[in-house]
Each structure stands twice: as structure tokens, then as C-alpha cells.
């Protein structure tokens, strides 16, 4: 009796436990899928591409930093210290800089995984594959460029003794630990070559995919326009002009606005001039702490000074505002520049009322919800003007410059050549693209010193703080990676 019972129980126990070891403990997640087999279908690849765009929304990238920090580091923006944000960047404190290293490389890995997976996806048309590939290449090129202009010198102004080269180039994706590569920094030239090849291939694949372009997603015009900008940074003026012309061709995305629609363009959900614009849905609202609206203004609507919205942490410097009012007509009266209407007095809700930039004013119909232009058509005229001016074509440059000047309400410039012409182009570039994330990068690519209002000290181009620090953990985790000097 005793033995039989014990025996039965023992058998029961053993059966219970071991008969189905794997089943017994099998649990599959429902909010995720296995990474090895994830990208084998067209649906999955499409979702994976969307997942790359999602990274671009990060406040480290276009969500805020790549738009606002260049204004704070340079001479367009002044920190008000209302929340304290961007004050360190405004003061050019050590380590107060761009921090998009992680997000960029994550997105680059995602793009690499998509590019790696694409040939193996079955039941997907070549046109659809081309469209996916074109987008992945565009975003990868775009992000390598964003890494370069923050962490490395541009080739034309490279300070050889300080330069540690470009950024690491990762060309294939990682799903398991064995695939991790400890890349060092590639040469500046190699990275630019890689970006060129990504954009060139992207343009080709967009063409063969035959898709209708929309500024909300990567498109052929965007690849051309970004090529123009990258070439300008590289000092390759032929390509800067060529790709600007391509991007301005008929049928391209982005419609150049007139003076009448200039302000209203900044009030519509998608800026009509945008060639590539990061989209935000209602549930992706960045919110009251770090959205561009809260960063730039206390207002919730133009002209409404009774309701305080955000912090208004970064406002135009006196120098910038003066520049908008620097031209006088024959009667000595200041000529009204339409672009100055995008700056107005904010509320006193967070402290002293300041004149604030209203380019980001909840254009999607909700406070703190703005789609963010990465590149817009006006820049193409400015890129080409500068490229032509630097290649000795003053007449062509002047034509493009005057497209921007006359639209703003300024008289057409005449007779400018040489440095005077280039200075005027750079001034218009500053006024046209202020608070859109260009100023610091433009000064940096030209090796210019940044002049700040007292008590904040100037930042000379030779200062190590011109380059962003590579995150310390990255240096620790990768012996091949060299930190920028000074950090």
C-alpha cells in the first residue's frame, strides 16, 4: 500500500515535470517578435522602415535639438532661463551640446537591417523594394550627415591638429552580439563619400520606384536637396548648385511661397515649402517641456498675450532682430521684412515678456504639436546662390539671392560681388532660416567665430567646444573610438 502510493506519486511528479519540459515553460511575448525572423515579409519591412522615421522624431534629432541647439550655440538665440533649458548651450558650457549619437546610430542600424533583409524578402515587387531601399538609404545618408556636422569638422575648415576624423561607418545591421563591430572613426572624406553614395543610390531608387512624392516621407527631391546641402558643407560647389537645381525642378516637392503667404505658411499643419518634414501625430506631442513651441515661445497663439503656454526658453538675440531691421528706404524708414512678422512679444507668464520666434506655434492644431521641416525649398536658392558665388558666377548668385530678398520685401540687390556678395547671401541665409537649426552649422562649416552678447563669452572657431563630445560610454565601450579633443 505504502510503496504503491509513493510510487504513483513519484511517477505523477516526474511526468508532470519532465514530460513536456519545453511546453511547460513556453511563453511567447505578445508585444514583440523574434528579431531573427522579424524582417521576412513585405509588411514587416514596411513597418521596419516606418520604425526608422520614428527615430527622427526624437527630441535629440529633429524633435528639438537639431533645430534649437544650433540657434542657442551660435548668435541667433538667447536663453531666458525661464525653465533653465538650453541655458548651458547658450553659454557654450562644456558638454552642453548635441546628443544625437545614440539615436542616430540606432536608426542607422535599423536602416542597415532593412537594407540587409530586402534581397531576401519574398513576394515583393521590385518597385516596392526600390521604394523601401531608397528611403532607407536617404535616412542613413541624412543621419551620417547629422553626425558629421555635430561631431567632426567640415573638410574645408578642418583644424588638422585638433581633428580626429569623421564618424564610424557602420554598413551592416546587428541582431545578435556576434555581429557587433567596434569601428573607429572613418576619415572625413570617406564618410562624405559614403553619404554621397547613399544619396546617389537613393535618388536612383526613388526614380525606379515610380512613387508619388510627399514631404512627409523621404522622396527623390529630398535626396537631391540634402545632396545640395551636403555638397555645400563639403565645399563641393558644383554639386551643391547642380542638386539645388534638380530639387527646384518642376514637379518637385515643396512650393516656394510668396510674401503674402509667407506667414500663413508657418501656420499650416505642413509647411508648403517643405521638401522633407517630420510628421507628428496628436499622440506624439512632445509636450510642454521640450517641444519646439515651448522652447521658442510662451504664446499659444499669435497675438494672444493673456494665455501662457510654454517656457520661451530661447528667444532671438538683439543682433538677430536688428539684422531684420537693418535696411532703410530712401526716406530713412526701416523697410518691413516679412520675416520679422514671425517674431512677436510673448507673455509675462514665465517672467519678463520677450520677443519670441513663432515659427512653431502648434501648427497641427494643438499646443506643442508641430510638424518639423528638415529641409525646405527656400534653402535651395540660398545653397545655389552661395555655390555660384563661390564658383565665380556672381550674376547667377545674385538672381537666386534676390528671389529671397524680394520675397521678404527687400529691394533686389545689385552689383554685389566677392566677399560682399557672399556676406549678403549668408546674411539672408541667417534671416531666412533663423530658428530652423542652421546658424551654428553654417558658422562652423565656414570656420567663423561666434560673437555673443555680454556676459556670455564669444566662442571662437578654434575652441574645442565647436565640436560635440562623443558620449563617454562610447569611448569606454569601444577602444577604437577617439574622443574629440578637450573632452
Amino acid at each position, binding site marked *: 500500500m505504502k510503496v504503491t*502510493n509513493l510510487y504513483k506519486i513519484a511517477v505523477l511528479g516526474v511526468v508532470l515535470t519532465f514530460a513536456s519540459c519545453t511546453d511547460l*515553460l513556453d511563453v511567447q511575448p505578445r508585444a514583440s517578435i523574434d528579431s531573427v525572423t*522579424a524582417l521576412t515579409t513585405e509588411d514587416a519591412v514596411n513597418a521596419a522602415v516606418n520604425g526608422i522615421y520614428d527615430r527622427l522624431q526624437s527630441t535629440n534629432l529633429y524633435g528639438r535639438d537639431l533645430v534649437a541647439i544650433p540657434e542657442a550655440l551660435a548668435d541667433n538665440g538667447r536663453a531666458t532661463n*525661464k525653465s533653465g533649458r538650453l541655458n548651458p548651450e547658450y553659454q557654450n558650457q562644456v558638454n552642453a551640446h548635441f546628443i544625437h*549619437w545614440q539615436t542616430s546610430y540606432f536608426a542607422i542600424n535599423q536602416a542597415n537591417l532593412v537594407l540587409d533583409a530586402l534581397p531576401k524578402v519574398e513576394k515583393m515587387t521590385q518597385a516596392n523594394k526600390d521604394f523601401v531601399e531608397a528611403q532607407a538609404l536617404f535616412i542613413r545618408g541624412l543621419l551620417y550627415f547629422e553626425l558629421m556636422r555635430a561631431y567632426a569638422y567640415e573638410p574645408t575648415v578642418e583644424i588638422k591638429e585638433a581633428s580626429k576624423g569623421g564618424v564610424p561607418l557602420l554598413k551592416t545591421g546587428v541582431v545578435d*552580439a556576434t555581429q557587433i563591430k567596434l569601428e573607429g572613426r572613418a576619415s572625413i572624406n570617406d564618410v562624405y563619400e559614403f553619404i554621397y553614395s547613399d544619396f546617389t543610390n537613393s535618388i536612383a531608387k526613388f526614380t525606379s520606384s515610380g512613387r508619388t512624392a510627399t514631404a512627409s516621407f523621404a522622396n527623390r527631391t529630398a535626396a537631391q536637396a540634402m545632396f545640395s546641402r551636403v555638397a555645400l558643407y563639403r565645399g563641393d560647389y558644383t554639386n551643391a548648385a547642380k542638386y539645388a537645381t534638380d530639387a527646384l525642378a518642376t514637379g518637385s516637392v515643396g512650393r516656394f511661397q510668396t510674401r503674402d503667404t509667407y506667414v500663413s505658411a508657418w501656420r499650416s499643419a505642413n509647411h508648403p515649402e517643405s521638401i522633407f518634414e517630420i510628421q507628428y501625430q496628436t499622440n506624439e506631442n512632445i509636450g510642454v517641456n521640450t517641444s519646439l513651441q515651448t522652447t521658442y515661445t510662451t504664446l499659444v497663439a499669435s497675438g494672444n498675450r493673456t*494665455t501662457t503656454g510654454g517656457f520661451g526658453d530661447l528667444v532671438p538675440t538683439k543682433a538677430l532682430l536688428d539684422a531684420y531691421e537693418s535696411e532703410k528706404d530712401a526716406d530713412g524708414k526701416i523697410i518691413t521684412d516679412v520675416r520679422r512678422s514671425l517674431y512677436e512679444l510673448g507673455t509675462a507668464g514665465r*517672467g519678463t515678456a520677450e520677443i519670441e520666434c513663432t515659427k512653431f506655434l502648434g501648427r497641427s492644431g494643438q499646443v506643442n504639436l508641430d510638424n518639423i521641416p528638415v529641409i525646405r525649398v527656400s534653402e535651395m536658392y540660398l545653397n545655389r546662390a552661395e555655390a555660384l558665388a563661390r564658383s565665380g558666377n556672381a550674376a547667377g548668385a545674385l538672381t537666386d539671392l534676390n528671389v529671397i530678398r524680394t520675397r521678404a520685401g527687400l529691394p533686389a540687390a545689385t552689383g554685389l560681388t566677392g566677399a560682399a556678395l557672399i556676406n549678403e547671401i549668408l546674411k539672408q541665409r541667417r534671416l531666412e532660416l533663423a530658428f530652423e537649426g542652421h546658424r551654428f552649422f553654417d558658422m562652423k562649416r565656414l570656420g567663423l567665430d561666434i560673437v555673443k552678447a555680454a556676459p556670455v563669452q564669444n566662442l571662437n572657431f578654434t575652441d574645442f567646444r565647436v565640436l560635440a563630445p562623443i*558620449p563617454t560610454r562610447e569611448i569606454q*565601450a569601444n577602444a577604437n573610438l577617439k574622443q574629440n579633443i578637450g573632452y
Partner: protein
Amino acid sequence: MMRKNLLSLLFAVFIGLQAFAQDKTVSGKVTSSDDGTPLPGVSVSVKGTSRGTTTDASGVYKITVSGNSTLIFSFIGFTSQQVPVNNRTIIDLQLASDAQELSEAVVVGYGTQSRRTLTGSQASVKGSEIATMPTNTFDKALQGRAAGVQVLGANGTPGGAAQVRVRGVGTIKGGTDPLYVVDGVQINSNSGSAAFTSSNPLNYLNPNDIESIEVLKDAASAAIYGAAAANGVVLITTKKGKSGATKISFDAFSGIVEPTKYLDVLNTQEFIAVRNEALINQSPTTEPAAAMRTTLGAIRLDPALTADQIAALPTYDWQRESYVSGKTSNYSISLNGGSDKSTFYLSGSYNSSDANVRNVDYKGGNINAKISNKVTSRLTVDNSINLSSFIQRGQFGGPAGGSFLGSPTFSAPLILPHNPIYKDDGTYYGTPADGGIAGVLNQNVLMVSDLNKIESRVNQAIASTVLTYKIMKGLSFRPSASVDYRFIKGFNFQDPRTADAFNVRGRIQNQNTENINFILNAVVNYDKQISSVHNISALAGAEYRRDQSENVQQSAEGIPTPQFTVAGAAANPITTFASWTAFKKAGVFGRVSYDYAGKYLLGLTARYDGSSRFGANNLWGFFPGISAGWDLSQEAFLKNNAYVNQLKLRASYGSLGADQIGNFDSRGLYGGGFNYGGVSGIAPTQLANPNLRWEQNVTTNFALDYGLFNNRVQGSVEYFIRTSKDLILDRPVTWLSGYSTISENVGELQNKGLEFDIRTVNVDKSANNRGFKWTTSFNFTQIDNKVTKLYDTLTTLPGRAVDGWIKIGYPVNSIYTAEYAGVNPATGRAMWYDNNGNIIYRLAGNPDSYSKIIGSQIPRYYGGLTNTFSYKGFDLEVFLNYEFGRTVFNNQSAFMAENGGRLFNTLRSIYENRWTTPGQITTVPRPFNGNAEVLGSGITAGSRFYEDASFIRVKTLTFGYNFSRELLKKVKIDRARLYVQGYNLYTWSKWTGFDSEFVNLGSGNNGTIPQPRTLTFGLQLGL
């Protein structure tokens, strides 16, 4: 020796035969010497035989014995007695209660064991010791009660979470909670996403229902719980029905809850002065009058105010409107009784407690039913069900508090003091419609607190069925099934009139979490005594557990009017979110205990355990424990020695697993939710590691249990070494890979500790008509925690926060920062030391050049001291607990030290000690706009606000009166006690904030609800 044993065996057989020949029936009644009430369920056995019975409902027993045998009466909580029959037929007996009786049965994993033969390390706390504490949950009441068990309230939220650590921290990444097992049911102690409030998963358990709490501390006692036991196991046993006339207990207390402290902050004039100073210090060329105009303008006062007008400005006290007194009350009633065949225990409780902060409270209750039925003489069925429901109102900013503008707990001391709270007409001042209030904290936090609704409701059902089948003498089979079901509903209503929801016209968030935890187990027990000296007890079992949690969330914005408080009425749906997670565990386990005449003790335990959390290559693990003991007091040379009642040496060694990692941490994953343009997107989220396995804790324990001078001095001394190996670390990988980390079993750390506890009866005249009695109990724990191994050749784990530093040779979560060097007497600038001892003004460059380890967040010493005095019917208990060696960042004080650097109010002590004149020696830098001097670091950097969080606290002071039984008999009441109790009465601490007892849930002590002081008046009745 051998021959002697044989002889005694023969003798026993002979006696047995004799007994058979001369059987007679003995009967009697067993009563309690405390109050003379009958004791049902007392075990009455015949010494040297397996024969035995129990007393019935009226304390009466009947047993057939031989005339010259001896009866052993034993009962949990009473001193057992041996009574020679001496041919009597009626033996009535009074049993004396003794809380510390050595031979009582104690609950161990999956069974019970006599304390005398216990060889593992386990701490016991009686339910009655903690039942009256106003803590909602028993875990907080354990603070200071048991050696080796450290408890810290997460915050002062009623029903809020607590951090319980048994023998230190044995992990870097994993969870540190012990495993909670209530009447055999493993409870899911993860408070889950109790979203909007700090919630304790043990709220469902009425402390009055608790019979005893056992904390299993070493591998020998806990290995039977295998892969889940590394952080210790807390076994809670609830009260059961006892056969006999139905007894009713009624317990109630009621009282007030109040803040322990208000911070002394600046008045309006002082703030204006210091803010002005900060501006002038930053820009010395500014004309004073111009600076004053800027100062006044920025805080929305008329810039043209004269000195006299400034002097006449009023000051408003936001703290005393936010931190307020509240009420607490608790009612608990239980009935228990039954027949010989079936017994029941029914209880119900209701608790309502306010926090010491406006609009934060707890209301809830439970119903508990336990029914036991003897179906046949072999089969017993035990059923229990516990239903509970409670609702908590939480604070703005969620359970972790945080530096939220709208949070009264954070903002009240920091709001600029010239801001009125109410307008003259009694409505709120500074509504968003009016443009807010002046300063960085621009919200009227009382309006935010009053109008918003932040709630979390938990409905929980725990039910179990246990069958006990006696296969034969000494052998029983006990299968059981249990379910622990919890539903948590979070609700957050942001009123459209308050700042955060003003522009979106109101926001509503709902979060629902359902947790189902299902457990099946079966245990076979075997007990055998051979030759009356070899006692063997064996157990084998198997267990299966499945736990799943599902969470659904939504939020919507834009409601028509504030009366609409459901998301359905909102115009814009904003988010929907859902998650699902689960784990499964299975294991087989066994235990063999052997003792030789109670002298030489041996225990073997093992469990083979598997968990779905681990990598495919390492699903299963084996966890053994061995322990041995030698009770010297049972040796001939000490036996019957009046001074030495117990002297037991014991040692144990074993291995335990820790499985508190994410359910899918070993998998390579592509996750959803990476959406763009309204279309779904996916992205890789985790690198795969199929080798991931449990963290292993190897514990060595040496101990001495002693009972001296007729057990008037009792206690234990224990020394342990807990080595935690294969610690799972998120090993950083270069971001170039697209990932931040990979989970790997790479680290190792060690806790070495000493535990000491002593319980003494100092004076005892209580036998003599309730005379004076004084008892003391004291416990002390010292723990040295040290990281011993990281991966590769690392000596420091990268990517850690400065207050969570992991460095070989130092405790886990050390603090690594620059030492604050005070203020340069010449300039008033803040200074720090670099690692060469040089003064620096800016913490820049490589942090290793100026940082060093300045302390640890883990306390080194803790414990408690209880003194109890009773005389006649009066009793007085004073309970102190203490903790030393914990250093924590004081976020709140850091904000309050800005001295006008930003528009925050400041502590008066900081203001009065600020640097103002060259030559002045102080630790408070001069006020400076923006808080960082040119080329200087912010004034709160470095070690300046890492404060010593040590404390000694008068945790409870209780004064009670027991009415005399004679008096009560006339009104047919068994017992009645009235008491007053003070909780958190007084604290000695150097902490400059509200209170140093908090757990950093992510925001430090920013906006944390401080621990309250509670004064209660209570009644305990037995009918």
C-alpha cells in the same frame, strides 16, 4: 552506545506491551493560565508513543493510556507540559502562554517544524506584535522587528509601497523583494502599474488576520523555494478556525495623521532681497535700482515699489495649506469556531487613512473566510478566500512624486512666498486663466490638488483549496490549487481649469491592469520516529506557477465641462496602449530532516526549478541546501540545568536562485510602437542571449541559539556570508550596434553580516496577581556589502548614475562624486576637491579626475529595541528602530538652496548662512543668478546635498489597559483592552528635508509624501 540503543528499543517494546495490558481512560480540561478560558485544539500525546488526541471546542480531551505513562500537552504559543498520569483518570491542566517557547511548531517552507530542531536561519514575528500599527500592511510593521530584515517605507502614502530587504542587496540589476508566501500561496509582490499612486501589493491582507510571519533568511531554509528564494522568503500564516463555541474579536482604532515637519522658508522680503543679490552678483555693473526693478518685474510685482512698500508686502504659507493633518481609522472583526468536524474563521476589516498631504488618502476593506472540513478521518479539505477592494487617492506627479510644477508636495515649500493662495472672494489665486502665479512654479498647487482626481482602485481575490489526505500513519499527501487575482484601475483626471490641461481643455487617463497568478502544488509528507530517538521527517513535492499581467491604457483630451469625468466625453483620443507579459515556473523539491534525540540535527533541502524567464539553453537549475545543528542543552551534562535551557550551534550552506528579471530579458526582440505618420512601425529593441540564467546566491550561515536562566534570556547570534554570483548585468555595448546593452550573467558581489538578537525578561512578578513585568528585546544587524567581480577587466561598471555607482570593493549603489569643499572666503564661489586634493571651481573634463566614492545608499547597521512594561492591567510598549550608514541625495533641499538663483523659495538656514562678505567662512555660496558662476559648476553639484539619512526613531509608543476578567465576566466579555498609540513620534536625524525614510522611485525625494506621525486610540474586544 549500540548496545544501549538496543536495550532501550527492547525496553520500549516491553513498555508498549505493558501499556497495552493496562490501558485506562484519562480525561480532563485544558485551560489557559492567562484567562482561564478553555483551549481547544491542544495536542495531547503519550510520551514515547505515537498515540495522541486534541482537545475539543470546550478544551476537553479523552485519551486511553497506561497508568504509568506521561502525557505531553502542547499548543502553539504555550509552554508545553509533561504530566505523569500516576494512575489518575482526570487530569485538568492550565497551560501558560509563552511567546518565545522553544518547542513550539514554526512554519517552514511547505510545512512546520519544531523550533527546537530548526537548523536554518529564520526570523519570526507574531501577528499580535504588529496588529495595532497604523501601517495598512504588515511589511512596514516589520521594520526593526527582525534581525537581518531591513524595511523602508517608500513614502508616507497610506497603503503605499515598502522596500523589504533580507540580508542586504544581492543583485545589481534584478529585483530585491523577498518572495511572499501567504498560507502557501506565492503572492505576486510586484505592485504592477498601480499607475497613479504608490500601492502596496500586501494591502489585501488584514494585519489582524495574521497569526505569524516567518522570514527565511539562509539557503537551508529557503532552498525549497529554489530559483525564487535568493532575496529571502516571507511566510505569512493567517489565523484559522478553532473548534469550540464561536468567538468574536473586535479591534478598532482611530486617530489623527499629521506632518512631522514644516520647512522653514523665506518670507517675501527676504526672497526679494536674495533674488536681487543673485542678479547683482551675476552682473555687478548693474545699478542697484535697476536690478531691483528687474527683480520685482520678474516676480510680477510693480517694479516701482519703494522700500517701504516692499516691507509691507504679505507672506503666504503654502506649506501649511498643502501638508495637513488627517484622520485614520481601522475596524476589524473576526468570528471563529466550529465543531470537531469543521471549523471556520471569518473576518472583515475596513480602513480609512488620510495622508499628511491634502487630497491623498486610502479607503478599503477585505472579507476573509477560511473553512476546514474533515470529510473522513483521513481527508481534510481547507478552503479559503480573501476578497479585498481598496481605493487610493494619489498625488500629482504619480507615485514617485517628482519635480512637477503642479505637485503640492514638491512645490509648496518652493513657491514664491508673495503669491497669495486665495483671492479675497475665496476663489483660487493665479489660475491659468489669470496667467498663473509668479515664479518658476507658476501653478496654484492647491487648486491643482483640489480639482484633479488621481485614483487607483485595486480589487483582489485570493482563493485556495487544500486537500490533506492521510495515507497511513506518518504519511500524508497534500495537493493544493490557488489563484491570486488582482485588478488595478488607475484614473487620472486633469481638470481643464488647471495648468497642465488648460490648453487642451482637460485630460483623462485610464490604466487597467489585470494580474492572474495561478499555482498548483502537491506535497507528500512523511514523519517517522525510530527507537524514540531517531526522528525523521521527509517531504517531497512539485509546483507549477503561471503569472500573467495585462495592461490597457488610454488617454483623451478636450472635455466639455469639468463635470464630465469619463474619457468617452472627451473630444480627442490621444493614446491607447496595451501590454501583455507572463512567466511560467515549474519545480520539484524535497526536504529531509533528521534529529537524534533532539541533540544532533541535520537538514537536507533541494529544488529543481525551471523558469520561462531564462534563456533557452538554461531553463532549469538545481538549488540544494544543507544544514546541521547540535543542541548542547540536550546533552547529559547540561540537561536539566536550570541556567541553560537551550544552547544550539548550527551551520548551513546552500545555493539559491534569483529570478527577478524581465519576463523576456533573454530574447532577441523587434518591438512595436515605433510608429510614424499614423502607420505602425517596428524596431529592434533587444539583443538575444539564450544563455541567460538565474543569479545564484550561495549562503553560508553560522549561528548560536541560546535560552538561558529559565528562558528569561533568549536569542540568537548569526554570521552569514551571502555570495551572489552570475549577477545579470546589462553589459553596455557600443551604440554603434544599434543597442545599448546586452543582459549577461557576469557580476559577483558579497554580503557579509552579523545578526544579533536578544529577548530578556528583566522583571517578572506577573504570576503574582498581575504584578510588574518588564521585558526587553533588541536586535542588531550589520551588513558589509561589496561588489567583487564585474565583466572583462572592469573595476567600475560604466553607464551608472553617480548615486548608483558599481565599483569592485565598494557597496552596490555607492555614491561617486566630487567632494564639496565649501566656499572660497574671498569670492563666495562654491569649490570642490579634485582627486589630488586641489580646489576646483568647475567639475569638467573626466569625472574620474574629481570624483570619489563618498558613501553608499545601503545602510550598514539597522535594528530595533522594544521595551514592554506591564503592571496590573496596564501595559506600556516603547519601540525604537534605527538605521545607520545610508547616504542619499536630498533633491528637495538642493532645490531649496538656490538662494534666488532661480525663482524658487529657499530654506532659511541656507539664506542665513550664505556668503555675503569677503573673509566670511561658510558652506553656502553667494547667491548667483542661474546658480553657476562664470566658468563654475552649479551650486548643487558634487557631494553637497548627499546627506546622511541615518535615523533613530520612536516608531511606536503604546499605552494600554486590560480590563480585569472578573469585571468583564459580568458583562459576558472575554477580554477588553483600550490603548493609545503614537507612531513615528520622534526622530533623531541630520536630514534637512522632511524625512529621510523614503525609497527613490525615480525622482529622489522630490515631491515624495513624507512619513506621517500618527496618534491613535484603540479598542480590542473579545467576546
